[in-house]
């Protein structure tokens, strides 16, 4: 299992990759592929078709690594991005889906990719998007946080901080010296 191919073969792979993805396109009708460069593909897909796409990519095209799942809050809907990497062809495919804002629920892909557990839990904590079927949905980072999901654009962290915390006067001698020389904080 050592992927030590020479560079020529790799280039062929890039070309063949488009063909593989095109084949998958035919099987899933709601798919839109965009090639950004040799090693980056962007795939837009409907939310319902994503699990099928991931299974196909993993099973047929050798995309064995789920690099990450990113969530973007577009204020009216969430965008989920699944970054998949193939060790054989050395291509990264980002599958983008959009899901509705309320109720923010989606299906888990834990059964296809084990690492999804971590990212889905993270998105659940940070955005409140619940993933059905994931065994790792208990809190991990924000176990002692009782506020709203903090990564939502609607959560104003500055306001929260001003409500919650005080500031102390901090005027050490060296700062006073600088201020005496005319230094000040640029705002």
């Amino acid at each position, binding site marked *: *299992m*050592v*992927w*030590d191919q020479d560079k020529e073969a790799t280039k062929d792979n890039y070309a063949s990759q488009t063909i593989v993805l095109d084949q998958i396109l035919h099987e899933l009708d709601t798919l839109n592929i965009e090639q950004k460069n040799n*090693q*980056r593909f962007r795939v837009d897909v409907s939310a319902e078709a994503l699990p099928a796409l991931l299974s196909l990519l993993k099973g047929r095209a050798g995309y*064995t*690594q*789920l*690099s*990450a799942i*990113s*969530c*973007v*809050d577009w204020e009216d809907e969430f965008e989920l*991005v699944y*970054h998949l990497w193939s*060790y054989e062809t*050395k291509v*990264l495919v*980002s599958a983008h889906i959009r899901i509705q804002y309320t109720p923010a629920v989606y299906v888990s892909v834990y059964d296809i*990719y*084990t*690492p999804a*557990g*971590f*990212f889905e839990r*993270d998105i659940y904590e*940070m955005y409140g998007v619940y993933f059905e079927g994931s065994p790792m949905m208990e809190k*991990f*980072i*924000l*176990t*002692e946080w009782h506020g709203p999901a*903090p*990564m939502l654009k609607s*959560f104003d*962290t*500055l306001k929260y901080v001003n409500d919650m915390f005080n500031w102390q006067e901090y005027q050490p001698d060296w700062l006073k010296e600088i201020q005496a020389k005319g230094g000040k904080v640029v705002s």
Partner: protein
Amino acid sequence: MRAENYQAVTHPESHEFELNFGPNHPGIEGNYALKVRVNGDKIVAAKADGGYLHRGFEKLMEGRLWIQNIALVPRICVPDPVPMEMCYALGVEDLCQFEVPERANWLRVLQLELSRIAAHLFTFGGHAATVGMYSNMFWGIADRDLILDMFEQMTGGRVYHMYTIPGGVRRDVGVEQLDKISDLLDYLEKRLSDYDNLFFNNKIFIQRARDTGILTPKQALSWGVTGPNLRACGLAFDVRRDDAYLCYDQIDFDIATETAGDALARNLVRRKELAQSIYIVRQVIDYLKKDKSTHIRCQIPNPLAWKVPAGETYTRVESSKGELSFYIVSNGGEKPYRVHVRGPSSMHAVQVLEKLVTGGRLEDVAQIMFSLDACPPEVDR
């Protein structure tokens, strides 16, 4: 005490008890916790507990200017901060379509590889300390400090450098400085044989580390393991070569692999990588000495009113822990719309650690954690 810390558990019939590794425990790397349930000295179940280092980085970055975030990103991973800057800079450059000068890329590689050497020396020290070999820790961390000195001379920062900025680097590095680095590398190579004698060839260490925390290639792939941990299973994957960035495609280096997949193999992979990094840095020094260009960054707009074109990008960098990725989304504004950080340890420190520790022995918990080189701040962000 607090209900939120412990979901009520009934007293187990099987006489197991709970033991907490961390956050205040020498067997844990940084501020992190691993709750284990033990029977005798056998780990029955393990559960990682993070969030002690959570600062809300991603939220903070959304609230700051593109240029301000340069100061913020290296703080995501403390022992190995340069890849963080690098990854962010690559992303912004991709969005802005910057053409980065060649010399800047080589300077960046210099930084990256020195940082990798420092991080690996630190990891050896930590790993040695978990098995009670303190002299290796004392030596390794002292030698790492010499690299930090080089950083300080080059960038002005000892730990956090903020040297790499989108579009290039902040300063050039002179020939004298390169000579100093070259001398340091000579010294380190000499020291490596000492480390070999003391640590890597130490029979008792080998006895302890061999067959501890074995990852099979299949497990490694399905659990999302990357970096040296993956290479220790015999899978030669390295972002530097396979998803090449900067000028790594012009540099000659081997991908260090081992086949056993245990703590010893992971350690030996790092040991080999250390030698490879020294080799790479020597190439970079040669290039930088020959190259007479002084162009180290491209033209960047007024940083206080810098609007990055709308778009999204996914950039990956090989850090000393594994594959590090940033997903950056811009809506054309002065601040990032969304930055998602995928630290390599987010896999290693949670799912992989839990699974490797379970079924093992109490003696090996700390060793497995350090052999995975898990870095909690990357997990918590």
